[in-house]
């Protein structure tokens, strides 16, 4: 089973993709979806996809930017770019990226199925060559308490950068993401992504109290995708941004 993540700002497009393709027979499973590149970056470490199907035109972070970032951070991720022919200029930029396939919009089942089949064959072949690649964590440098502190302060300084996530930070400090994730949880009692979100949300709450509009706050804290920001904010505070702003005014 290959894990598939669909990244598209159109919810009906994501839905259509999910329902109209016979994933099982392809040996694939849709394990996650994201409404923007921003959201994708934040959840990709949890979703852990083998294949990402990315719409090229999305707000906040378009398919190209996401692909640039993802192909650096996740070298083994297979990326399929979806485009209408109009986005030819975008598509041309992709030529320099290690994109696996292009898919034309609007979605036509036959085309999508054919493309995915081709990709599956490629991935099968690669896996056969490399074998199941389990990272040997024993060889990694020891991550002591001070290193965790260092990473924490890095997050506190850089959470405004919408492109950081577990894997990119792990790469930066020379660890594997799973090792960092495990050690971080051991040392701080929190998931890495929970800590990153906490930093962002604390800052957001502060800004909300200062009567900042949501879109500028979301930009300020590194989640420019307001829809996703709203989701995170609600999850963290229990109320929506506007409710929170109102509640703070009452006090």
């Amino acid at each position: 089973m290959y894990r598939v993540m669909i990244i598209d700002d159109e919810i009906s497009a994501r839905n259509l993709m999910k329902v109209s393709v016979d994933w099982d027979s392809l040996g694939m499973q849709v394990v996650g979806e994201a409404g923007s590149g921003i959201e994708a970056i934040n959840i990709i470490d949890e979703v852990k996809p083998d294949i990402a199907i990315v719409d090229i035109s999305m707000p906040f972070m378009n398919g190209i930017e996401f692909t640039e970032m993802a192909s650096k951070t996740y070298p083994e991720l297979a990326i399929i770019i979806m485009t209408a022919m109009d986005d030819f200029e975008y598509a041309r930029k992709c030529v320099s990226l290690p994109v696996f396939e292009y898919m034309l919009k609007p979605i036509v089942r036959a085309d999508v199925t054919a493309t995915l089949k081709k990709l599956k064959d490629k991935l099968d072949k690669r896996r056969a060559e490399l074998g199941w690649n389990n990272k040997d964590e024993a060889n990694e440098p020891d991550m002591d308490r001070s290193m965790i502190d260092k990473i924490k302060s890095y997050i506190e300084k850089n959470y405004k950068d919408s492109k950081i996530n577990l894997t990119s930070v792990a790469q930066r400090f020379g660890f594997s993401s799973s090792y960092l994730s495990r050690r971080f949880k051991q040392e701080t009692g929190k998931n890495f992504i929970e800590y990153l979100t906490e930093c962002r949300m604390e800052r957001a709450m502060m800004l909300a109290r200062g009567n900042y509009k949501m879109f500028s706050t979301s930009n300020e804290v590194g989640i420019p995708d307001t829809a996703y920001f709203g989701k995170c904010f609600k999850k963290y505070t229990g109320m929506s941004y506007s409710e929170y702003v109102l509640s703070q005014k009452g006090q």
Partner: protein
Amino acid sequence: MKWVQKILNRQNVSGAHESIAVRLWNIIALIFTMLTAALIIAIVMVTLNTRKENSVRESETIINGITSTLRGNIDNYKDLSRLVMINETIMEFLRAENVDSGLKNDSIYAINDILIVCNNVDSFFIFRNDGDYVSTGRGEYFIDREMMNRPEWLDQINEKRGGAIIRMNGNGAIFRRNGNQFITVARTVYDIYSQKKTGILLMNISMHLLETAIGENENAGICIVSENGDYLAGDEELAGFFTEEFRSGEMIHKDNGDKRFHMISGYKPDELPIVIMCRVTPAGTSVPAAVLVVLTLLAVVFAISIVLLASYISKDINRPILDLSEAMEDTKKSGWLKKIEVRMPDNEIGQLAVSYNSMNEYLNEILTRLIEQEKTVRGVEMRVLQEQIKPHFLYNSLETISYMAYEAGATKAFEALETLGNFYRNFLSKGNREIPLKREIQIIKDYLSIQKLRYGDILSDEYDVDEAANELMIPKLILQPLVENSIYHGIRPKGEPGVIKISANLDGDILNVIVYDSGIGMSEEQIGLILEEKDDDEDENPALSGFGLKGTIKRIRYFCKDKNAIEIFSEEGEYTKIVLRINTKQQGE
């Protein structure tokens, strides 16, 4: 010089195309004719002039010869007469108071003795002062006494005081019975001793003298006449040409039209009562060889010059111009503004070729620029057309509606929407202007499957495409408008079930694509209208323009660079068959 103009303009008059070569040859021919004529005239004039000079010279020689011969002879006769004059017996006869017959006879004897030495003295008369006379001579003579005694005649003789005067026929006083003419030497006789005038003597010389003088020049027509023009000796025919001018004392030469008497000269020697006439025949004169040689040489040089000029014109002007125009013609036929490669002389004509080439270059540049502009304009038009539809909106809407249909379990609607999406994706996509045939066929299939949703009861489709033809590139969207046309102008108006059949096969390099429909067909006139090559078609036939059929035909022709790349066969009420022949080897753009 109207005729010159006529020759020069001959080609124009006939209205035909006039080449420089022909005109040049006309001019050369004209020059040649004129110069030849001038040369001939010159030769004739020189000949005539020379002939005249020769004739004059000849005449002078002849006449002067005869004159001097005659003078010499007549001088002899004068001397002879002097001998008679101083003869004793004669003097006696003249002095005597009374003359008897004896004395007369003695006198005659004395005269005869003296005159015996010469033949031509015809007769001799000696008159005494009293009028008595003796005479001797052959034949019979008559004396006109009255004439003889005319005072003016006697005065003429006496004026000479013993010298001789020469007159014809004793100045009219003596004539012969047989009518022969003669020349008379007359003089006064003076007595030697008393120096008194004692008488007059007349010595008559026969015409034989003249004949003898002429005789040496028998061949040249010579004639001697009296002062009055009476024939005396020589060529009698010539006497008829006598005129009074000849008496002037100068030698006169007169041109005469007559062939044999082309020039007649006449001269009256001083003191002689005769006129010597002479003619010169043309045969007797000729142009000097040197003159002829010079003139011939001139003619030859002239002819050579003409030939050289002609060959120069032909080689250095005519030929290059023809080559040039041929090369230009080739260029024209080739349909491209090519440079002329023919070698040209390094002169004005070469310059012409160079100018032509550089003009071509310039025109090519302009054409290229125009074509580029045209392409740009077309590209812009296309883009404008395509941008009128916002694909993103369309696609997203289609996807949303598709999902809704799926959710609602409307499978047919879902499938139809998917087909529509596929159709529009191919239909609206930019990028390649040429696509594989199989993709165009897919567009048609999608298109027809949607149309069948609407007209499923009357519309069916069939496909027969060669495997080999599938991958060949054709301009995008050249078949779809034809199929669209088949539905709206073929099958739908007919109202009966109809079929649209697409077939394609490869015949060598030619890809044949046939769009057939069993619709209402077209009339010959309609086909003509559709196929006619006009640019302003858009508004002319609104029934056709809406479906871009003509535009499609234009694109096909443009792509194939062949106006016969599309053909339409039809039978009204039965079918329409549109055949495209696309040469896959020479695809443009």
